[in-house]
């Protein structure tokens, strides 16, 4: 009641700092239940205070607990939002289905809106000098060469290159491709660069 349940949520976040865990809908509902109970108790006691002054301190204590629960819930949600933001930069604008099910509906909503915002911003860069925008999620490291050799880790299927050629990406196949085409796939873990 006094913040124990909600701490478990946060400990779960802290344990998995680098990954996203599934949205713990069940626990959140329980915590909100608790907050309702606290609030109702307080309402009753507050109304009774006119006769019994000593209940006033109890009301204050319960109120602190309510604020504590609220703070923890907000921190949990905020922490997840930050991780979801990273998801956009690492997985791209389309999430693989097993990641998609880790998000709640409103979180996925937020993700789409963020994706749209990012795309609009990227498109607008350089518009005044005639470019149709720069993809900021590429070239996160200074590029070294035009072409690189890659090994395909999982079956991906057909990849169409800019000049029209189609490459078949099967597991364990090696290819010599332009850096700009491979970058996203390497970040997503589908290709691996080999020297």
């Amino acid at each position: 009641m006094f913040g124990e349940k909600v701490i478990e949520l946060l400990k779960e976040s802290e344990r998995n700092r680098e990954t996203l865990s599934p949205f713990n809908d069940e626990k959140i509902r329980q915590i909100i239940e608790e907050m309702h109970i606290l609030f109702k108790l307080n309402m009753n006691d507050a109304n009774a205070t006119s006769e019994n002054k000593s209940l006033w301190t109890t009301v204050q204590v319960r109120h602190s607990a309510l604020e504590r629960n609220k703070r923890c819930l907000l921190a949990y949600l905020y922490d997840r939002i930050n991780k979801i933001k990273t998801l956009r930069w690492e997985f791209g604008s389309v999430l693989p289905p097993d990641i998609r099910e880790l998000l709640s509906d409103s979180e996925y909503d937020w993700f789409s809106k963020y994706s749209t915002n990012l795309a609009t911003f990227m498109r607008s860069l350089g518009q005044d000098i005639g470019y149709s925008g720069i993809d900021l999620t590429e070239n996160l490291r200074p590029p070294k060469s035009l072409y690189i050799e890659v090994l395909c880790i999982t079956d991906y299927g057909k990849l169409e290159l800019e000049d029209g050629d189609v490459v078949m990406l099967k597991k364990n196949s090696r290819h010599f491709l332009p850096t700009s085409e491979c970058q996203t796939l390497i970040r997503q873990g589908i290709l691996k660069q080999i020297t």
Partner: protein
Amino acid sequence: MSYLSVTDILVSNEKVPCKFLHDLPKLGFLDPSCTDDDLKAGTSVEIPIWLAESLSSRRPPLVTVDLPKVYKETYREIFSADACTVDLHKLAQYFYELGCYVAKYDIKGEVSTTLVNTFRQRFKMILSASVATDSINALQPLSECERDHTAAAMTTEKALSSWLKRGESLLTTATMVANHRKRKRAEMEML
């Protein structure tokens, strides 16, 4: 932005010994050894610091806060003798952060000096842990805050030494993607 900081919330969840100055009806459950519904004035209970702060800052204050034993005289002497031999992770995971909260209840101001000096002394443990080959043992006695700094230093160190060794910079899988795959693989193996 410490309101939303998960670390700050976990730190403020740590318990400190307090004495209640007033009767608190219906809040007997705060004291696990109390069988009454009500909490009587004069009881000493260990409560989380967030609650302790909120209660002691009311006018009039509802509790007095006492220092946890780690910040008291005996331990302070151990820290000033040789801070580097202490296993902070076992003793007080959030030593520095909790210390900052607790120091204001120490009228003499000695806790704050201990905190500062201990951090200064133990900095070299962070330095050596960041380049240690046996990082697990080196990390073991460090507190949470020290571990965070060490992790950051380790990343820099790794990046630098791999730059020195390697000719080409390799593009790599993104961190979250790699971790997600690792976790999935571990889950599959458990099934």
